[in-house]
């Protein structure tokens, strides 16, 4: 894919040098193993895709489970409580598994006046959109489901598709609370998509790429600390704006107006129970993780850290060990982001809907535009000076 017009003017050394452009790492792996000749290619490809989907579902479920557990522990300790302590033995690590089993056992109820079809497919759409967005999430430099030059576009586009599912759920529930929640979700997402995308522009201008893998590779200098947040003055305020918008996008407190348990029962979740309800929650936690991954990739160096720098200078690059270090680095950074979201949730009181709108349109959008301007100007100055 050719880079967008605005980016073709960038210096040549900024073009990424990650191995294996295009294609699917799993498919390459399968080809390396070399299946027998008589098996048609499409069956091999289908198996590779199936394995990819399996890994993805496993990762998302694990992330959602441990984010829920972490949320409960963090919120407990912030209120001087202990949080779950019994299930599984050590600090209640199996609490979410127990909860999941309980949710599977629960009666699957559909309200009488509900639109059955929409009611049933809404949680599926919500979950499918986040799974789709996670396809662009690379596990390491050599292992990814899809290498996308415009990965961040795809993540943002599919990430905002959840809104359709939420509106469907609200409409299909045949409940005023649900519809209010869904309308608020729509208003909020429309308001915050703009600053989210604009704030992302600042590191995109700094790095000059839309691909997550390339963005990470470009931040590998300075002993693995040439992170975008240090290389451009506009990136720190852009990160703050991005983070506020990401909180609103993922419906997290202080922007949890679509759920709003104090005034709207549970918003669009009111009529849902059991496993369908837990799909919405999996989506919320997976979206939190995904937003944190974006922040880690474009502001905080992606896979790069002094550890990967040390390995690379020792001549270890590629291979399973290096890939594992990359993955652990990214997951640690992403979970630091998830922790920051939880910290903000338990610190700030909820804002009113008009305050949410004011903040989105009057504050974040102009400030994000200002950030883009500063980022562009400082990049231009840098390219003139150095």
């Amino acid at each position: 894919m050719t880079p967008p017009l605005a980016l073709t003017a960038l210096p040549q050394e900024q073009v990424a040098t990650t191995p294996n452009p295009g294609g699917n790492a799993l498919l390459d792996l399968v080809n390396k193993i070399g299946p027998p000749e008589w098996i048609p290619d499409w069956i091999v490809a289908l198996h590779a895709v199936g394995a990819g989907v399996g890994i993805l579902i496993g990762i998302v479920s694990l992330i959602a489970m441990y984010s829920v557990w972490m949320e409960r522990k963090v919120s407990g300790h912030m209120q001087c409580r202990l949080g779950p302590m019994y299930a599984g033995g050590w600090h209640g690590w199996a609490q979410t598994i127990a909860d999941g089993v309980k949710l599977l056992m629960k009666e699957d109820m559909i309200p009488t006046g509900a639109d059955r079809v929409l009611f049933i497919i809404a949680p599926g759409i919500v979950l499918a959109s986040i799974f789709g967005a996670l396809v662009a999430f690379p596990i390491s430099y050599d292992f990814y489901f899809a290498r996308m030059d415009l990965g961040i576009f795809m993540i943002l586009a599919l990430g905002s598709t959840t809104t359709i599912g939420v509106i469907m759920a609200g409409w299909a529930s045949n409940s005023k609370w649900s519809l209010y929640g869904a309308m608020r979700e729509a208003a909020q997402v429309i308001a915050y998509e703009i600053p989210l995308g604009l704030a992302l522009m600042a590191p995109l201008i700094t790095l000059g790429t839309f691909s997550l893998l390339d963005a990470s590779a470009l931040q590998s200098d300075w002993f693995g600390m040439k992170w975008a947040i240090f290389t451009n003055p506009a990136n720190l305020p852009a990160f703050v704006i991005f983070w506020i918008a990401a909180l609103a996008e993922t419906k997290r407190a202080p922007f949890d107006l679509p759920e709003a348990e104090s005034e709207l029962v549970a918003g669009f979740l009111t009529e849902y129970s059991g496993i369908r309800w837990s799909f919405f929650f999996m989506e919320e936690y997976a979206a939190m993780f995904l937003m944190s991954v974006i922040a880690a990739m474009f502001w905080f160096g992606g896979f790069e850290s002094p550890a990967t720098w040390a390995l690379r200078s020792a001549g270890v690059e590629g291979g399973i060990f290096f890939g594992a270090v990359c993955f652990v680095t990214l997951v640690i950074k992403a979970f630091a982001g998830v922790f920051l979201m939880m910290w903000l949730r338990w610190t700030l009181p909820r804002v009113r809907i008009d305050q949410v709108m004011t903040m989105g349109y009057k504050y974040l959008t102009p400030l994000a535009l200002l950030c883009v301007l500063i980022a562009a100007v400082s990049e231009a100055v840098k390219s003139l000076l150095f």
Partner: protein
Amino acid sequence: MVSTKEYFQNVWDALKTTAIGMRITGKYLMQKPITVQYPDERLPIPDRYRGIHYLEQEKCINCLACARACPIDCIEMDAIRHGKELEWVAFTLDYQKCMFCELCVYPCPKDCIHMGTEFALVTYDRSELNHDLLSFQGMGRGARIRMREAQAKKAAKEKAKAAAAAKKADTEKDADEPEAAGAGTGGDE
């Protein structure tokens, strides 16, 4: 409409107050939790706490003072008296009714009913709330021994009395029969 200065002041205030709030929650996060894992560990309970009663059954004399003092009649007690010893049949306290007023504790002449520190009244069935305060029914070991001793003593006394009576009768008989004059000899037969 806000002025430019106010606008940036608002932005600054939002960031500053969020930072202050995050410092406070962060401090609490680092602090040791003040709650305890309840069934395993418990916080100390004050001495004068009015929990579930306990009864020093050995001291109780079945005087019914506590049952009479109870304003809602939740104490039921019954015992069979063997001389000074008691054979306990029942001493129940209905915690469906009890309001933990402690009025049963004061009138006790033997100071044997107390308010305890246990407070958990969770049951699967209401009938289980009718607690039996007796640690044993019937008689305790000490009470049995004391009763046996008392009975033996009583029997001996009876016997002695009977003997004395018999002797008296003998002496009276002897008095009727002039040739038997020895007083102590009658009992030896």
